[in-house]
């Protein structure tokens, strides 16, 4: 059962998304352009670029669809104009600079799909000055929201599931963003623009914004809804906003507030977020004020408090931690050292098995271990 393939099938049956990208790419890509497709998947965006007349498409993907991409490009007559590369784009070198970068790394809220990290790197290392990007800009929107069913999933941890105390998990859940498909009537206030990501230039590593949403009806505010609107090209936008008819099939985000609070028409919700896209770390503060401007309640949450930390891992992140290698680390170092351009894989597997018999129940296990290192890091160049 291929979950990866089914995920990409879902992308392809999402007509608003596919249509938006096809129109945007045909607007941005000029005949003769060299195009980089980041996170290429099955290659659909690269196919649109080739259809629009691109001279060459470099399709980069790290999740293992590379050979499938090659066969799909070939089946559509583009074998000579598509170069498929397996790996993280931040570790890839291209033989030429590109004119256009395309991709759908927007995630659910603009900051959770790698957009900032991978586009920034690609612009700096792989693109001509003035490179065109699809998308060029992503706006983040927030609104106070009534979401009792989603709140119930958070509250679940305080309800002694199976008769045990799981309260600690509540603290994690209430400091986590949850994917949600909203209905328009769940919005308690008009969406407000929180922040904008300009994909064409380097920005602050920390994205900050404040948005004020006027509450337009009484209800219970369970949290803040977040979604994006992406400018794919000068005339094409794409969004997972629950308020748009052409919404794509991608859930938005629910940021809880603790506790859920009754709101009245003419209240205001002032939402401030600080976001580190590199860590997908989000701080959200919400100040609820009444019609006269008096503060009724303040909320403060952070996905840092929602992170599943282990003290052992945390200790290793401190600047003053002095590490040594475990026995597994020593075995890994041995594999790396044996990749000297002279030894074959079979020789390396034998040596690793002989020197670390205590780690491997069989030569087969040692082979799999060696394979884990050689596939991402080995080369014959």
């Amino acid at each position, binding site marked *: 059962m291929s979950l990866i393939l089914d995920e990409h099938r879902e992308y392809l049956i999402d007509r608003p998304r596919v249509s938006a990208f096809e129109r945007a790419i045909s607007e941005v890509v000029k005949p003769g352009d060299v195009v980089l497709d980041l996170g290429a998947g099955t290659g659909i965006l690269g196919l649109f670029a080739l259809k629009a007349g691109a001279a060459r498409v470099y399709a980069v993907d790290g999740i293992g669809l590379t050979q499938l991409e090659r066969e799909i490009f070939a089946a559509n007559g583009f074998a000579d104009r598509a170069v498929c590369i397996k790996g993280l784009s931040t570790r890839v070198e291209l033989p030429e600079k590109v004119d256009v970068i395309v991709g759908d790394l927007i995630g659910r809220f603009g900051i959770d799909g790698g957009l900032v990290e991978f586009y920034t790197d690609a612009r700096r290392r792989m693109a001509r000055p003035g490179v065109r990007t699809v998308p060029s800009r992503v706006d983040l929107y927030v609104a106070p929201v009534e979401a009792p069913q989603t709140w119930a999933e958070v509250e679940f941890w305080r309800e002694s599931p199976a008769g045990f105390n799981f309260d600690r998990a509540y603290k994690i859940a209430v400091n986590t963003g949850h994917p949600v498909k909203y209905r328009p009537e769940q919005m308690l206030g008009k969406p407000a623009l929180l922040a904008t990501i300009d994909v064409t230039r380097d920005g602050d*590593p*920390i994205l*900050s914004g404040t948005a004020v949403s006027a509450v337009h009806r009484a209800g219970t505010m369970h949290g803040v809804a977040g979604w994006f609107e992406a400018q794919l090209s000068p005339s094409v936008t794409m969004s997972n906003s629950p308020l748009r008819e052409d919404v794509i099939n991608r859930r938005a985000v629910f940021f809880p507030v603790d506790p859920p609070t009754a709101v009245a028409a003419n209240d205001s919700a002032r939402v401030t977020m*600080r976001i*580190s896209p*590199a*860590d997908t*770390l989000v*701080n959200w503060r919400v100040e609820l004020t009444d019609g006269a401007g008096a503060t009724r309640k303040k909320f403060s949450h*952070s996905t*840092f*408090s929602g992170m599943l*930390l282990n*003290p052992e891992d*945390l200790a290793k*992140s*401190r*600047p003053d931690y002095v590490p040594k290698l475990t026995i597994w680390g020593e075995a890994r170092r041995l594999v790396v050292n044996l990749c000297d351009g002279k030894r074959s894989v079979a020789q390396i597997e034998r040596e690793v098995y002989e020197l670390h018999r205590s780690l491997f129940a069989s030569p087969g296990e040692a082979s799999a271990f060696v394979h884990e290192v050689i596939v991402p890091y080995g080369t014959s160049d």
Partner: protein
Amino acid sequence: MKIEISDEVVWREFEGEVVILDLASQHYFGLTGAGNDMWQLIAEHGSSDKVIEQLLTRYDVDPANLKADFEKLVNELAAKGMVRVSSAD
């Protein structure tokens, strides 16, 4: 004096320790024991007088020593950019 935690840090309590992440440097710092209490009181009160008053109810120490230890911690935190100090209380 007024003490404000920087917007560039996020923090949480974890295993009896306050763990602070500096978003700018991506470094973690930890405060335990009295340092843990001092940080959480700064977060709650934001005023050196109120923090010291609370600490004196928890620790049976010479007030002058406690004040000196607190000021030393605040200076270290301010030097790392983790708090902002101003004279208004």
